[in-house]
């Protein structure tokens, strides 16, 4: 019997807000799907679009980048640069036929443990409905 599809979602979480929020989520015992693989980065602004494409290349079905709310960035403007960058990347991916729901961005603060769980749940569900990502996956 074939195993049901379990999406692999890679999440880049900024150290100061979203990663801390994820920690709080865990400590508070909020449940979220185990499909997410978390990568801690110092700032959402440090996430190069190359990493996102690389994740897809290595077989990720979905990618999430989560950072501080605008105005709260530990490095003042990092998340604002990220916002610009990802707006462009998202539209470009849609344009070449990669469903934009595969690449999502969220602002999750250190105190929003519950929001973190919800974001992960929603992203994983979105990606689950889209099925495995084959377009950018390396075929070696």
């Amino acid at each position, binding site marked *: 019997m074939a195993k049901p599809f379990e999406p692999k979602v890679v999440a880049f979480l900024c150290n100061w807000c979203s990663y801390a929020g994820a920690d709080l989520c865990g400590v508070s015992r909020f449940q979220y799907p185990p499909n997410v693989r978390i990568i801690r980065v110092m700032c959402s602004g440090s996430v190069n679009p190359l990493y996102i*494409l690389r994740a897809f290349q290595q077989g990720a079905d979905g990618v999430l980048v989560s950072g501080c709310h605008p105005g709260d960035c530990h490095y003042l403007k990092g998340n604002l640069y990220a916002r*610009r960058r*990802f707006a462009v*990347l998202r539209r470009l991916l849609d344009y070449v036929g990669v469903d934009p729901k595969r690449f999502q961005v969220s602002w999750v603060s250190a105190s929003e443990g519950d929001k973190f769980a919800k974001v992960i749940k929603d992203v994983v569900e979105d990606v689950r409905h889209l099925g495995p990502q084959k377009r950018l996956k390396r*075929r070696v």
Partner: protein
Amino acid sequence: MSHHEERNKKVREVAKKALEDKKVRYFIGYTPGTYCGRDQPVFVDKPGDVDRLQWGPGSTHNLAVYIMDDKRRPLKKGEQPDKRPIGIIVKGCDTMGLVEYLKERIIDRNDVFLVGVECDGIVDQAKLEARLKKEKVPIKARLDLKLSVEGDDLIVDYEGGNLKVPFKDLMLDKCMVCDRREPIMHDVIITRTGELKEGREETARVGERRKKGRSKSRKEEDYADIKAIEDMTLDERAAYWDKELSRCIRCYACRSSCPLCYCEQCVVDPSNLSTKPTTAPEEKARRPKWVERNNDLSETLFFHLVRALHTAGRCIDCGECERACPMDIPLRKLTRKIRKDMKELFDQEAGSDPNEKPAMATAREEDPQEFVR
């Protein structure tokens, strides 16, 4: 003397004077090419050689692409750096590349002596060759064509005859919707009628030029083909890009011909790993390989996505990438999508103001974020 001849005369005069006065190190311009009326880039070092220069509807190339090469040329032993500018002919589209260079502070305004030319459009070589075949112009005659513009017509002179064709039938697609036929930044300018005028640094945004009623707006006309692709379903878009990009042979002609792709080492171009004898082995070993050399579709898609992203806020749509591509991949449909998005999302236009901060190096509080959870 026709306008065409007047303009050539002026180009040669300007270059000659600049070289004689030793005001420039050398002059980059256009000279007749080897077939079908195209021009080729030429580098003139001596005042005596300026007669090689010409400028006309075959002057397709964006000569700004040679500037970074020059900047990077290693000095010979004992050679003192020559601080004089390079003379260069720039059409309206080419000038915008230089605006971007200034914006990114990769050159100094005094590194270039800009000879602007008012442009009526450039011939599409593929369209021209098809037309010559259709008109059964003898094959030998097709080697040595002379192209000139008279009013709205293109005149093609060849041994034993000539053709008069409405220019818009044979023009490059990008020229049909161009609204920057007058370069916005130059040291001197040669007008359509062959007059030589003093330079200006008018970097008014396209929107403001539109207000002055100078030329048609790009926005209304230009992105129809992008919208057509946007209106396809996701699967149709995927199929379209798979079909177009599967032809890519990863020759890197697009990157080589783009003036804004000036990185000595490109993250997605494995054909150029610029190392020196002083590069540490650890640095070489740790260099990530983002794409493989093979041209599987997954690698090719990665390459083109990253290249398109790196042109965000910088691409001036000179069209050289698409022209250089030997496989006729519609690259401008990728880069112009980004250009369209930059305008819609951030009201930004590359190549208009050298004093602006680069678009991806700035951010506003009010940037759109409806896609953010």
